[in-house]
């Protein structure tokens, strides 16, 4: 190494310089900002941050960058001086990579013009990003940054005539080499072209792709999908799925869900389009594909005007040493796979045991970027440097797997019973086999979930259904890992690092220690065991200690919060929430109360016959069902029924109540909360429960001149979202805060009610609500039925009087002759 090639010390070179970083809220960006502030004392950093609706750029930078535990070390080292250093050397400008001119205002452009180095590390890093997002950010982003730098170059020359033009360091990925086999060199595609490479490689492919056409079609695709998703049959499908998930939850919630499904549908299509297009051209996924094109767009467009260096790291993982061993931000590619494996969920993962898995600790990448910035651009034009371990210090996939297995055997995760989980042996099957297995498992679980979901189960059985959903979810996730990352464990490209090592050689001996990026320093066994895995486990919120489950504590805590004196109001649904009965049973009881024994059986048979149609109508529209069903009370003597209702309550409803539910209502009252009963039941039926509630919202039937029920409702019972509205009105009128309120309900049709309060509780939920509650972390109560309950909803035999209810005589005649009788044609209406 000739003396003149040796760089002056990095910190010295960069002293007084100004570095602008994009993507600073990301994993690499955060580490870079921290390292510059800590290790390059004379250097200023500006971060380009997209403001959110709530936070402007500086606030977001403070919250998402400076508050990260990455800065703990610097904070500890500087003590009170930390804020001064931040004030003097750190600033944030507002901008957006996906808009032209980076969305900079004049001030922002002045800051950019002032920057000596721009490190562009912003990217859509998800391998399954939708195509249009990947195109906007990864493909067009680098060129946009370069264009903005070029646009500000004149200002810079005017303002700082003595300073060199801004140096763009663009972070790409080693995997632009795609599914390349063999050695991949640190060359840009145009160098490859210049050197006259003949073999068809990713570089030549990159050259051939019509970038404009790709961009146009990606944008067009988004527009087409937006249109397509609004087609009537698609919308009907989304609504159908939403209804299947939520049941009769009300128009607005169904609409909201259907719209979300539409969005998801577009998203999924775009993700699919991205990966299909990428694979068609020889890249493993849309990320690598758009990154590759992004490099070409950058070099093609601005290689001649903007001094630039491209840095291509491989898979970036937790820090080897800086700012502390194991530091990581976010859950990255390998972590979910590792955790799934440690949980025993991922029984197999495809991969070649002798293949190289190219992993590089983040601090090595950061050091390389700083060194590149310090070294400045190559005079010859755009250059590229790999930061990868595969050639210099290869980690074999088989070795990694056995390291992981060893570690988790010594430090197992624990299941919910506090038992250690034994990690499986991987047999390194082919990609296809694993995929087939997982696909089959997923399909079987999906089917099971649908079958269970359509059964009228509730409570603990419904929890079982939710359990299946969770397992299906895991299987789907495992499948997506295989889909997404399989290519990376089977990659056969080896990334040469000649230029990286050359740069390393040019560092002063001190800098080689301070800014070490020689991949040879990583001792894989120690890195995996002592640095990476402990960090992954700590991040994954998994149980790494034995002992009893904390889920009991969790529900105990939730119950505590619900029964806190600060709550304002508790709203209760009635059927299957407080009482394991329904309006049909109440009707059957009242109707049979004064019938002779033989007729009682006939009436019961009649109601049983109607049950399926009634159930179906109830599931479709609760309001319609109640209106239709209550017509059966037509001509019933109101005074008698009101009198019988008290007996009905004690004989049937209370006997079928959930004692814990009644106790809960009373507990709320004892705490001074308002208690509200919202039910579709009739007023005289719930009358005996009035002492439990401050407010009862229910249905009431009209009474004619002879004191008989008309069968038409005077007061409509609120169903679906009307329940939420009623509750909201009540709360508003009484000056109560729904955010501080509790609601108890059992079915998805009560979603609006549950959603409108701060503390929703699913009681013995039916399967759809059980699944929703589990997903949303809602508190679930399993209230047991009382020990003794009547087998049939029939009143005790009235020996004194029979056929008091004249109208029922007609019904019974009809039953005998197969006619329609009471509720003439109404059961049919139910079946329609």
């Amino acid at each position: 190494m000739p003396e003149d090639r040796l760089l002056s010390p990095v910190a010295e070179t960069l002293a007084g310089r100004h570095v602008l970083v994009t993507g600073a809220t990301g994993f690499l960006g955060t580490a870079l900002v921290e390292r510059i502030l800590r290790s390059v004392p004379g250097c200023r950093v500006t971060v380009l941050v997209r403001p959110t609706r709530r936070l402007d750029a500086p606030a977001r930078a403070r919250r998402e960058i400076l508050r990260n535990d990455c800065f703990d070390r610097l904070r500890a080292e500087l003590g009170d001086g930390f804020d001064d250093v931040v004030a003097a050397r750190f600033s944030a400008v507002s901008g957006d990579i996906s808009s032209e001119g980076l969305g900079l205002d004049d001030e922002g452009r002045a800051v950019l013009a002032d920057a000596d180095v721009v490190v562009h590390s912003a990217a859509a890093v998800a391998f399954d990003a939708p195509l249009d997002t990947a195109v906007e950010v990864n493909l067009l982003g680098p060129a946009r940054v370069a264009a903005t730098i070029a646009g500000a170059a004149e200002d810079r020359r005017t303002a700082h005539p003595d300073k060199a033009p801004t140096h763009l360091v663009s972070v790409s990925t080693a995997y632009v080499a795609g599914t390349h086999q063999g050695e991949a060199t640190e060359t840009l595609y145009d160098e490859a072209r210049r050197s006259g490479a003949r073999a068809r490689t990713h570089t030549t492919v990159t050259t051939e792709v019509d970038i404009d056409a790709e961009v146009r079609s990606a944008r067009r695709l988004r527009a087409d999908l937006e249109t397509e998703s609004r087609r009537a049959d698609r919308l009907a499908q989304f609504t159908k799925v939403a209804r299947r998930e939520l049941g009769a939850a009300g128009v607005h919630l169904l609409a909201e869900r259907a719209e979300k499904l539409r969005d998801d549908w577009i998203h999924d299509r775009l993700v699919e389009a991205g990966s299909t297009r990428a694979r068609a051209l020889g890249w493993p996924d849309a990320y690598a594909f758009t990154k590759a094109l992004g490099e070409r767009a950058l070099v093609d467009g601005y290689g001649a005007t903007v001094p630039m260096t491209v840095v291509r790291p491989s898979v970036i993982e937790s820090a080897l040493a800086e700012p502390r061993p194991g530091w990581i931000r976010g859950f990255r590619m390998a972590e979910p796979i590792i955790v799934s494996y440690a949980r025993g969920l991922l029984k197999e993962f495809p991969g070649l045991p002798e293949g190289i898995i190219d992993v590089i600790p983040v601090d090595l990448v950061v050091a390389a970027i700083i060194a590149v910035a310090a070294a400045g651009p190559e005079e010859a034009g755009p250059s590229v440097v790999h930061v990868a371990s595969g050639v210099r210090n290869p980690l074999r996939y088989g070795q990694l797997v056995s390291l992981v297995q060893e570690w988790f055997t010594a430090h197992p995760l624990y299941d919910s019973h506090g038992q250690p989980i034994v990690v499986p042996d991987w047999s390194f099957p082919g990609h296809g086999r694993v995929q087939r297995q997982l696909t089959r498992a997923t399909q079987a679980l999906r089917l099971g979930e649908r079958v269970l979901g359509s059964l009228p189960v509730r409570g603990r059985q419904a929890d079982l259904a939710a359990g299946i959903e969770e397992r299906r979810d895991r299987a789907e996730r495992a499948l997506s890992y295989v889909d997404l990352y399989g290519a990376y464990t089977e990659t056969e490209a080896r990334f040469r690092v000649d230029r990286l090592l050359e740069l390393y050689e040019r560092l002063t001996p001190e800098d080689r220690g301070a800014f070490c990026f020689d991949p040879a320093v990583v001792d894989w066994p120690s890195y995996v065991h002592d640095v990476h895995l402990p960090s992954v486990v700590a991040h994954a919120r998994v149980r790494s200690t034995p002992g009893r489950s904390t889920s009991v504590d969790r529900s105990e805590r939730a119950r505590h919060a619900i029964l806190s004196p600060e709550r304002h109001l508790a709203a209760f649904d009635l059927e299957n929430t407080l009482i394991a009965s329904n309006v049909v049973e109440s009707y059957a009881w009242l109707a049979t109360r004064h019938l002779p024994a033989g007729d009682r059986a006939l009436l019961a048979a009649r109601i049983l016959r109607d049950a399926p149609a009634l159930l179906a109508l109830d599931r479709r529209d609760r309001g319609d069902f109640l209106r239709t069903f209550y017509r059966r009370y037509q001509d019933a003597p109101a005074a008698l029924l009101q009198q019988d209702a008290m007996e009905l309550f004690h004989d049937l409803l209370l006997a079928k109540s959930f004692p814990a539910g009644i106790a809960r209502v009373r507990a709320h009252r004892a705490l001074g909360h308002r208690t509200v009963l919202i039910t579709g039941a009739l007023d005289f039926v719930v009358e005996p429960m009035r002492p439990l509630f401050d407010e009862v919202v229910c249905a009431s039937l009209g009474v004619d001149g002879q004191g008989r029920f008309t069968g038409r409702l005077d007061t409509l019972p609120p169903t679906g979202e009307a329940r939420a509205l009623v509750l909201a009105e009540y709360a508003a009128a009484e000056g109560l805060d729904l955010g501080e309120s509790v609601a108890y309900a059992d079915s998805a049709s009560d979603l609006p009610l549950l959603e409108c309060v701060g503390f929703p509780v699913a009681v013995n939920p039916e399967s759809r609500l059980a699944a929703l509650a589990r997903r949303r972390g809602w508190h679930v109560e399993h209230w047991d039925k009382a020990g003794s309950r009547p087998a049939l909803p029939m009143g005790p035999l009235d020996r004194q009087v029979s056929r008091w209810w004249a109208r029922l005589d007609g019904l019974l005649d009809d039953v005998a002759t197969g006619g329609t009788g009471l509720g003439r044609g109404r059961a049919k209406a139910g079946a329609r």
Partner: protein
Amino acid sequence: MSPRPGFVLEVDRSTPPTLFWHGEGFRLERLPEGTRLLYGPEPLDPLPDPVSAIRHALLHPLGDSAPLPELLVPGMKLTIAFDDVSLPLPPMRRPDVRQLVVEQVLDFAAEAGVDDVVLIAALALHRRMTDAELRHALGDRVFDAFAPHDLLRQHDAEDPSQLVHLGLTDQDEDVEINKRAAESDLLVYVNINLVPMDGGHKSVATGLASYRSLKHHHNARTMQHSRSFMDQEHSELHSSNWRMGRHIAASGVKVFQIETTLNTDTFPEQFRFLMRREWEWSPRDRAAFLASSAALARTPPRLARSILHSIRSPQKMTSVQAGEVEAVHARTTANVYAQQLVEVDGQTDVLTMGLPYICPYNVNSIMNPILVACLGLGYFFNMYRGEPLVREGGVVVMSHPTPWEFNPVHHPSYIDFFEQVLSETTDPIEVGKFEEAFATDPWYVHLYRTGHAYHGVHPFYMWYWCAHALAHLGAVIVVGGDRAAVRRLGFTPATTMADALEMARDVVGPDPTITHLHSPPLVMADVR
């Protein structure tokens, strides 16, 4: 052949295993040699003609009372109060003794031209009876004549308009009873005296009283000083009721007391083996035992429960006496003792008992854990005269499945008492701190008044009933019970009788004396 008296058998090698009630089933246990088995006397012969006996009693009253017809005059206000569904156990076959007695009283009243007659079920704080239960107790004729006209009422201890305060006793105890009863020209009270505690002044002073009045004697202190409450001479509960009864009489309430006793012919033919001494079981008894225990074991508990609760007992009346309260009750008590008393020589270290599916407070209902405790430690433990059957610091071993189950219609406050109070403390004195809140809880009052719920305070009374036993015993062990429920009661669960006896040895020392209270029939130990 006259019925054989009760006696004590000492278990030896030839003694067959002993039958234990075990809730809705049975257990056969081989008790250690030397264990004393306490058998009650065989059922006494019933009165050959109960109706004549009743008429005779009404016409020849005891004490300073005039015969009933002389007390009945046209235009008078007559109230007939009667014991509620808690008596007798199990409910007896039709006709119920109450029906027989009430019909005779009504006949006399009709003859005398009395037309203001009201029947009142003396519930105290028990649950209201259902129509079917009232019909069973009083018969169709009485029920159909009175119920439709609101002349068959149930005492409501929570309706101020139906209560009257008669002042304080000399010990400052409030006397507040049913207004209609107190303001009647004659109050006839119809009793079924199953145990020595029933009847006497307790009939009116407790059966028709309010919470305000009851709390003076239904409390832990009184019960700890009633040793036992089945023994009138040593019962503070009895003394307080007597003070109140005498105060009621002094206030001008004219009570005509009718008391009846039943024999211990408790179970129908198919369960006759329960009543027989095990070594005397015939092949038929053995077959009946095997068949019924196998059937019950295979029946779902809820169904087994409803089958057993549908049993109607063939008990028969052995005596009826009427007239002035104290004179009547003295005769009645002697008659109860004649049927139930067995002489026992000295106390025991360990007392074992098998608890059935029923107690006074769960007719047609579930025997919840609190009732299990009350039946064992309240009733059976207190079935002694003189010294308790088990020595101080001794152990009671009870056999019952003790399921963590409650009837929400009958025992709503029991559920909360079990969850909220017993989880805090099982000390009867400490428990008393929660009493007021339960007694005045508007929801419990609502359920007591409008439904079929025991009063909110009732579980406390059940616990006070155990107070004497809890203070006296070194440990209580429950064989074959729900472990969580047994622990909540403060007792120790055991899987087998052998385990339970081993555990008892840890408390009372090795080689304990063991006595088994064999039931049925009801038996009262006269400990010498």
